[in-house]
């Protein structure tokens, strides 16, 4: 099967089965195939338990599929070793989580610097890049030395987005990024995703809410581990 020239992600018959015991197994994803183009903004939508989080873990290389192929930028990553997966996450993916996952006892700046530490970016560059990333999500100097647990939910998610962007990843994977936020903060976060997408950032958004998915350019509807609808909204 030939791969789409413009695509960054190509999934072919991707399946994921969790084996709870020898008799009990749960088939979470069933032969899912789709491609995502560079610079696209895609929402993966579906009710709770439909397999969207599992799909995100596979796309983010936090987990590997039971069967099927996953090509990232034309490279088959479904056979990667643990260290290769770690390198892939470090270089290609920026994660944004529902519960932010900030290091609560570290400063805002330190949280954003962390991916650069693992990427072995020279020390002198790190702080500058973290400051730029934080400015890009609308946080100014006055917040940089705060401990992350001193911030509001909206601010925490901005820090998390800055952390995801700081290493210039190929894709941003956001898992229910507005799930813990009020509607005003949610709108601000989603608008910022649109802004980064317009600047050329590929974004994949996982959500169960239609109004969140509506911020994306394309919505993939998932139900019971299968794609039931795939529509482009703009």
């Amino acid at each position, binding site marked *: 099967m030939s791969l789409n020239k413009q695509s960054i992600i190509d999934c072919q018959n991707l399946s994921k089965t969790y084996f709870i015991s020898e008799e009990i197994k749960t088939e979470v994803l069933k032969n899912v195939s789709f491609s995502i183009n560079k610079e696209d903004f895609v929402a993966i939508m579906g009710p709770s338990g439909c397999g969207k989080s599992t799909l995100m873990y596979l796309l983010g290389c*936090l987990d590997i599929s039971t069967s099927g192929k996953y090509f990232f930028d034309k490279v088959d990553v479904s056979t990667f070793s643990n260290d290769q997966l*770690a*390198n892939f*996450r*470090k270089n290609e993916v920026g994660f944004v989580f529902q519960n932010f*996952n900030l290091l609560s006892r*570290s400063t805002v700046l330190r949280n954003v610097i962390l*991916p650069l530490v*693992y990427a072995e970016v020279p020390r002198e560059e790190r702080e500058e890049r973290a400051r730029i990333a934080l400015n890009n999500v609308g946080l100014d100097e006055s917040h940089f030395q705060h401990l992350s647990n001193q911030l509001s939910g909206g601010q925490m998610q901005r820090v998390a987005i800055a952390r995801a962007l700081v*290493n210039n990843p190929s894709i941003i994977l956001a898992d229910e990024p507005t799930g813990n936020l009020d509607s005003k903060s949610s709108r601000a976060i989603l608008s910022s995703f649109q802004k980064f997408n317009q600047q050329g950032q590929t974004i994949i958004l996982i959500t169960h809410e239609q109004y969140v998915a509506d911020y994306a350019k394309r919505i993939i509807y998932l139900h019971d581990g299968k794609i039931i609808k795939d529509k482009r909204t703009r």
Partner: protein
Amino acid sequence: MKFNDLFQEVFISILSNKTKSSLTVLGIVIGIGSVVAMMSIGQGAKISVQESIQSVGSNLLVIYPGAQKNIGMNISGGRGSAQTLSQDDADAVENEIDFIRTVAPEISKRYQVTAKGTNTNTSIIGTTTSYSQVKNLEMDVGSFISEQNVKSLSKIAVLGPTTRDDLFGEGVDPIGQKIRINRINFTVIGLTEAKGGTGFGSQDDIIFIPISTAQRYLSGDDYVSGINVQVQNEEYMTAIQEQITKLLLDRHNISNPQLADFSIMNQAAILNTMNKVTNTFTIFLGAIASISLIVGGIGIMNMMLTTVTERTREIGLRKAIGSKNKDIHLQFLTEAIVLTFIGGIMGIIFGVLVSFGINHFTATTTSISMFSIILAFSVSGVIGIGFGYYPAKQAAKLNPIEALRYE
């Protein structure tokens, strides 16, 4: 992950939970501190025993009259009382055996001594000039018995400080004073420096007089109650002990060494035995103290395991942003090692302070050896690695998804 980044991460996480980190470090501090302090007590005991033995002279062989009871039991019961050793034996040892520095025969017996209305019962040692060298005697005032004194049977006496205190009072200069031993007048010519009580009887409660004078006026015969032999080199002591035994057996016409009418105390052998005893004592104390070190190590492990649980989500996040398993493993292991290392250094300081305290405020002598410090330090390193490895392994093998979802 680079090395300096690793350390920065480790210090950030140690400092972010100061209370917990300090309490964990405290366990190690107490453990290492007790090992250092306890071993210093053991080492102190060893040195004090050594000094005590060597204060009666170094490289010393002492020949006592009286039958040897058993092989391996050097000191006979008839010590000093049997009349089997003579002045001639002492001369023969000095003249016929090589590598001897000097020989000092002695006659010792307790007498009632009087002076100016006071009296005391003390040991009278009749001996020669070389005695002061053999027994490391230092003079406080005056001089020790001279060869001339021995030759001319002078009625002179050298007092030990305790005897001086008993007869004349503390701090009084006794030189030129008269004392009476067995109703014979003696003139005091010297006072020895205090040596303190030793394991071989007080060297301070004593009076020295020329051996010739003692034989003529006090004992009335030619026998001696001991011959002190100082050997030139510690290495020759056993060989010379054998030579003396052979010589004296020949002189006394005894063919079976089992029936010897004298015995020889070898200071080196005693020192050796005492060293074994005090080394065992040191190991014993160290072993007791190391129990607290193990408890401290378990404290480290406990803290690290709790930390891994508490920081599960953080571990998940670190993995999500590209940390490899070995990075996580190294980070948590380094954290444990750094904690024990800090605890180790503080523990050594603590142990040294305790040891100085014991030395200063109690009668117990302590001595800190470099060995115990290096040992404590290596043990703390081993504890860090040993007790940190398992929690670090647990952290490294966490599944990133489960870790991220951990509540």
